[in-house]
């Protein structure tokens, strides 16, 4: 395997961004380029992730291509997925050995449409989506199953929220933050019983950009590259009756494939849009919560950009390796209802 690292990361999350998607993503690309000194001509491969259903337009990614300066033409691809999977595609390209550097970006604006309704169109279109179940209702069913089974208590969920909100205070990209006692949170009314508002993701507009580099290039442009030691992703079945919502089997498989538990994990950035999904993922990935700092950024609970949240987790984990805060970090991305599809990566410093 070729050694490939995340060498730069930039992101923006905001409740509502007034710029269009192109204006929103271009400065982030510019930022990772200037951090690494890699200009448009120095990038061998570009890959992005976004969704037409968020933009409300077909072929919406064609409009944001201009942010890459695609004149002259570039080697480029796009996934209709979270940018984390664009990073995976770029990682594969770099593994072949013909490309040394890659620009990856993901973005989405949830504010123009109603994301909760948009996500209903991701469900079985014949027997489920026609009822237009919203994303919070679907997540609430999963939370209740976990509560009923004793996997978690409502206090556990409030603890996740309180810690995330407190950590988010140090994250300029968080859209929700602050110090709250657990009892204070538990006193809040239900939004969608059993979920309270702080159990649900703080939707945001925004995006993230990352530069990947191989071997010597990574060492040249970054003081402490975050080496991608392993990366894997898996899909679960969709049918609501078949999946055990208390588990994320695809996350378990991906975590095993990358060897999460083979060594101590200093930091884990998990894409858990709902509070109950954090303990579920901690268990699925086999993390030792007592010795791993979970979501020091505040996580998706305090700022969630659809189609970029996973790439943000990769970037946040890499940043902690860059800064020397962590030697070994785990990053996770997810897609689909009840954590149907999951990606897990292990990042390490030298």
């Amino acid at each position, binding site marked *: 395997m070729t050694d490939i690292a995340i060498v730069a990361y930039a992101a923006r999350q905001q409740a509502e*961004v*007034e*710029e*269009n998607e*192109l*204006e929103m993503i*271009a*400065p982030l*690309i*510019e930022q990772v380029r200037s951090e690494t000194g890699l200009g*448009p001509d120095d990038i061998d491969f570009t890959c992005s992730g976004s969704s037409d*259903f968020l933009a*409300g337009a077909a072929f919406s990614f064609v*409009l944001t*291509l*201009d*942010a*890459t*300066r*695609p*004149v002259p033409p570039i080697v480029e691809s796009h996934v209709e997925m979270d940018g984390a999977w664009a990073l995976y595609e770029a990682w594969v390209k770099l593994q072949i050995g013909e490309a040394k550097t890659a620009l990856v970006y993901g973005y989405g*604006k949830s*504010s*123009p*449409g*109603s994301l909760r*309704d*948009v996500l209903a*169109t991701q469900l079985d*279109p*014949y027997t489920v*989506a*026609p009822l237009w179940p919203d994303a919070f209702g679907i997540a609430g069913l999963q939370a209740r199953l976990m509560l009923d089974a004793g996997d978690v208590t409502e206090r556990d969920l409030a603890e996740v929220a309180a810690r995330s909100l407190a950590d988010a205070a140090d994250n300029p990209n968080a859209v929700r933050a602050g110090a709250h006692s657990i009892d204070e949170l538990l006193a809040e009314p239900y939004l969608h019983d059993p979920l309270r508002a702080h159990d649900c993701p703080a939707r945001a507009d925004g995006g993230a950009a990352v530069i990947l580099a191989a071997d010597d290039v990574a060492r040249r442009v970054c003081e402490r590259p975050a080496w991608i030691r392993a990366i894997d992703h898996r899909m679960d079945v969709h049918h609501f009756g078949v999946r055990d919502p208390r588990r994320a089997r695809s996350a378990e498989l991906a975590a095993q494939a990358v060897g999460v538990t083979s060594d101590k994990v200093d930091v884990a950035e998990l894409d858990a849009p709902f509070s109950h999904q954090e303990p579920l993922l901690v268990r699925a990935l086999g993390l030792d919560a007592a010795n791993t700092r979970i979501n020091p950024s505040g996580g998706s609970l305090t700022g969630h950009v659809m189609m970029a949240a996973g790439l943000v987790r990769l970037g946040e984990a890499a940043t902690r390796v860059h800064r020397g805060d962590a030697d070994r970090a785990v990053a996770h991305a997810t897609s689909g209802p009840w954590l149907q599809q999951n990606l897990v990566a292990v990042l390490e410093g030298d």
Partner: protein
Amino acid sequence: MTAPLDPVAPPITLPPSLRDVEPVQRVRTPFRLDYEVSAGRSMAAYLRAMKEKRILGERCPVTGQVFVPPRGVTPTSGLVTTELVELPDRGYVESFCVTRVPIPGRDDLQLPYVSAWIVLDGASVGFLGLVADIPPEEVRLGLRVQAVWRPDDELGETADNIKYWAPTGEPDVEITSYEYVGQPGEAP
């Protein structure tokens, strides 16, 4: 190997209650999503100028190319635009299509109609518009045209303010290269 069109799905068996009834084969699933789209900074300025019958483009900070309509970032730089420039409402037809099929939501367009890429004087790229006041068969590459605006009381923050483009009567622009976008004589 199986023959090309052999069925691949095995037949299903039904319980007695469904054996003698007409099977459902289609299901209606009406779809509707609503969006409030933000124009972005450059486009907002462009649309507001449109209301005053002015056309704004943006200048690429690297190449100096002028793009219209402005989208906030020029593809020749990848950078967010800082300079907007006002362009005249005149130009030439770079190429065009005579459309004879109706399009959804445009029942007002009489067939056939001519849609054209119009390069405004001073712009580096074509700008999409309708050409009228001339029989479709007389529209040609290089034709000089000028904007015909909607009446003042119908103007809004929309590109639809330009009703169509009409011939100016000036001599045609001599096209030196049919392949390249932009002002004649500036092809690479």
